């Protein structure tokens, strides 16, 4: 049986990075508290001896508060023969000593590894390693040291010892307190906010603005598939195969892959903001303002990117810890008009506004207002804002690259495949009639289906299958709506009120299938489809309301809005019920785990909490005498 070495330390102390180095593994290392939630173990060779190194979840106290802490403490308790390798940040050594003393009081083989020495010294700290080792009574190493591995094999043959709970500040010089000069500027509202706004604007422009990087790359891919390869496929003799290759496969591939550069760019900016610590500062600066609608600074990044592309923005919500907020952000993202809706607004607005530009501005403002309303309406009690200021540092290129490649891979595998399937389906339905013969759009299967759907738009004065066709093609890509209108009509023949109502419908309806696919990846297929259905139905009702209010008559507005509001209320209550169910299951599970781990079931939740508070107080007295 191999010797056991358990890695014990605070969350985010660098245990997992150390584990990877010692075992040459690639366990995922995250930048936030709570990544390791299970014991990872791997065997390795230490100076000729086989040893099994186990990476445990981070703990703060031997009493163990959270589920992860309890798990780790029990794991350590159950293996009195295992050696303990303590891992602590240089800056936190003082708070860590009591825990080391507690875990080794009965004598265990142990050693201490200090991490993040560079940052500690940069912030003005200093530590005398040999003196610390003598004071505490166990070998101490620095994480960067080459002799660490030898130290580990020495650990295996060492005698058990107990760490002395002593005051380290006699030999450890603490870091300079207070805010760094950079932070004094960044966290100042008058300087920081404009700076961050400028950064976000820069990111947005680089990704979405015409003629700049993101747009250029998108055009490049479109050109490759649709113009270049599409042109080459003109030579295919069979009409059906040619259509399949040119309008089906190549067009679909091109339309899907052209998302890739912009999604990649957005993720790159997001990772850079996060790794550099800037996102943390942005969140802290803006928390007060956005807390009122239940959003955070981090969520604002995703919402702003929604002006460029809804699907890409949805993928950026991945990092949001608060899953409730993530769902709300995803729900209200489509209302923020993506760049693909712009041609539609322009095409329609000529009919109802003399100045199309003003019409577009109006629509955008309406969209943002709707989005905020939805976010506010579905706001639940969010966790209070409490966060550590992330260190300000230059992003590590390798880490950034790895994260980016991971995101791209995820997009291709999970999202792109779904979109591709839909594109091909849409091509098929719009190129063939029911006898499976190649035909024009007007005679295709899709057109026939739209004949049935046209009644949906009758209340706004446009009971025409072509309107339904245009709307349906918007499901594939919002740009298609403008294209469909141009193809089927030439110029828009209906009244201004109808045109505006239709624009409102496009504004509020479900986003394109790419965004739905991205949503499905984040919150699940069922939910994504539910959101899409809800958005489309409510968009229809909203467009009716707008139309009726435009042609005069408050009664009609009330009639149209009533089912909408009813639907909202039902939706909210359903969410409450399902959430209550989940909370109950969670509480049940926690009670069972507590009973299992402690051996004796807790008398009541109150008692347990009181015990927790007591322990918290008592444990800390040890380090009070500084």
């Amino acid at each position, binding site marked *: 049986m191999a010797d056991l070495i358990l890695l014990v330390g605070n969350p985010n102390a660098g245990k997992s990075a150390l584990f990877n180095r010692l075992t040459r593994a690639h366990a995922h290392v995250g930048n936030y*508290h709570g990544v390791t939630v299970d014991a990872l173990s791997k065997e390795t060779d230490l100076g000729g001896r086989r040893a099994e190194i186990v990476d445990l979840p981070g703990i703060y106290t031997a009493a163990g508060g959270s589920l992860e802490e309890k798990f780790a403490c029990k794991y350590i308790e159950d293996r009195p023969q295992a050696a303990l390798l303590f891992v602590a940040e240089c800056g936190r050594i003082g708070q860590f000593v009591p825990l080391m003393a507690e875990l080794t009081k009965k004598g265990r083989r142990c050693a201490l590894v200090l991490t993040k020495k560079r940052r500690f010294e940069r912030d003005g700290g200093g530590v005398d390693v040999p003196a610390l080792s003598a004071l505490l009574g166990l070998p101490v190493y620095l994480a960067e040291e080459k002799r660490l591995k030898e130290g580990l094999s020495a650990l295996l043959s060492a005698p058990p010892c107990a760490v002395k709970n002593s005051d380290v500040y006699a030999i450890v010089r603490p870091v300079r307190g207070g805010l760094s000069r950079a932070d004094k500027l960044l966290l100042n509202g008058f300087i920081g906010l404009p700076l961050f706004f400028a950064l976000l604007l820069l990111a947005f422009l680089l990704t979405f603005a015409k003629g700049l990087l993101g747009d250029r790359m998108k055009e490049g891919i479109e050109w490759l598939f649709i113009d270049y390869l599409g042109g080459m496929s003109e030579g295919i003799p069979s009409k059906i195969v040619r259509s399949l290759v040119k309008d089906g496969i190549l067009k679909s591939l091109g339309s899907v892959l052209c998302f890739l550069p912009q999604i990649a760019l957005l993720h790159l900016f997001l990772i850079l903001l996060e790794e550099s610590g800037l996102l943390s500062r942005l969140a802290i600066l803006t928390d007060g303002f956005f807390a009122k609608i239940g959003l955070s600074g981090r969520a604002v990044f995703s919402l702003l990117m929604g002006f460029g592309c809804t699907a890409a923005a949805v993928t950026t919500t991945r990092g949001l810890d608060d899953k409730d907020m993530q769902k709300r952000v995803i729900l209200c993202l489509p209302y923020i008009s993506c760049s693909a809706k712009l041609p539609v607004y322009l095409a329609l607005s000529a009919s109802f506004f003399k100045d199309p530009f003003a019409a577009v501005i109006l629509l955008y403002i309406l969209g943002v207002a709707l989005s905020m309303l939805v976010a506010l309406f579905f706001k639940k009690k969010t966790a*209070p804002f409490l966060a550590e200021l992330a260190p300000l540092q230059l992003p590590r290129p390798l880490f950034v690259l790895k994260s980016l490649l991971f995101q791209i891979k995820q997009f291709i595998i999970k999202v792109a495949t779904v979109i591709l399937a839909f594109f091909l389906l849409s091509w098929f339905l719009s190129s063939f009639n029911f006898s499976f013969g190649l035909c024009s759009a007007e005679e295709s299967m899709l057109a026939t289906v739209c004949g049935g759907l046209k009644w949906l738009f009758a209340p706004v004065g446009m009971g025409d299958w072509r309107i339904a066709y245009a709307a349906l093609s918007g499901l594939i890509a919002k740009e298609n709506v403008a294209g469909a209108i141009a193809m089927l009509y030439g110029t828009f023949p209906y009244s201004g009120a109808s045109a505006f109502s239709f624009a409102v419908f496009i504004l509020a309806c479900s986003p394109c299938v790419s965004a739905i696919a991205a949503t499905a990846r984040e919150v699940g297929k069922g939910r994504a489809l539910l959101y899409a259905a809800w958005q489309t139905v409510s968009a229809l009702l909203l467009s009716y309301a707008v139309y009726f209010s435009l042609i005069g008559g408050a009664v009609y507005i009330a009639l149209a809005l009533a089912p909408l509001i009813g639907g909202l209320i039902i939706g909210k209550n359903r969410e409450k019920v399902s959430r209550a169910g989940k909370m109950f299951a969670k509480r049940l599970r926690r009670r069972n785990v507590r009973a299992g781990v402690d051996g004796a079931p807790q008398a009541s939740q109150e008692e347990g909490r009181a015990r927790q508070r007591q322990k918290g107080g008592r444990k800390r007295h040890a380090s009070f005498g500084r």
Partner: protein
Amino acid sequence: MDMDITDLKKGERAVVLKVECEGDLFDRLVALGVFSGAKITLLKRSFFGHGYLIEAANSRIAMEKEVAKKVRIWRI
């Protein structure tokens, strides 16, 4: 004299007397270095007066007013 973090002025130091909350929030505060007996410094109050930035256990922690009100302190 019942004081909490919201009564501190910029740059003032204090000792935490008691953290008056339970469960997850309590765990998080303790983990970040805010527990009975810990020494903290108020670094700054936020733009909108809604947030507080303190220094505890060699790291800087931001919290909203609701949380700051739960930390009883003694000014030193």
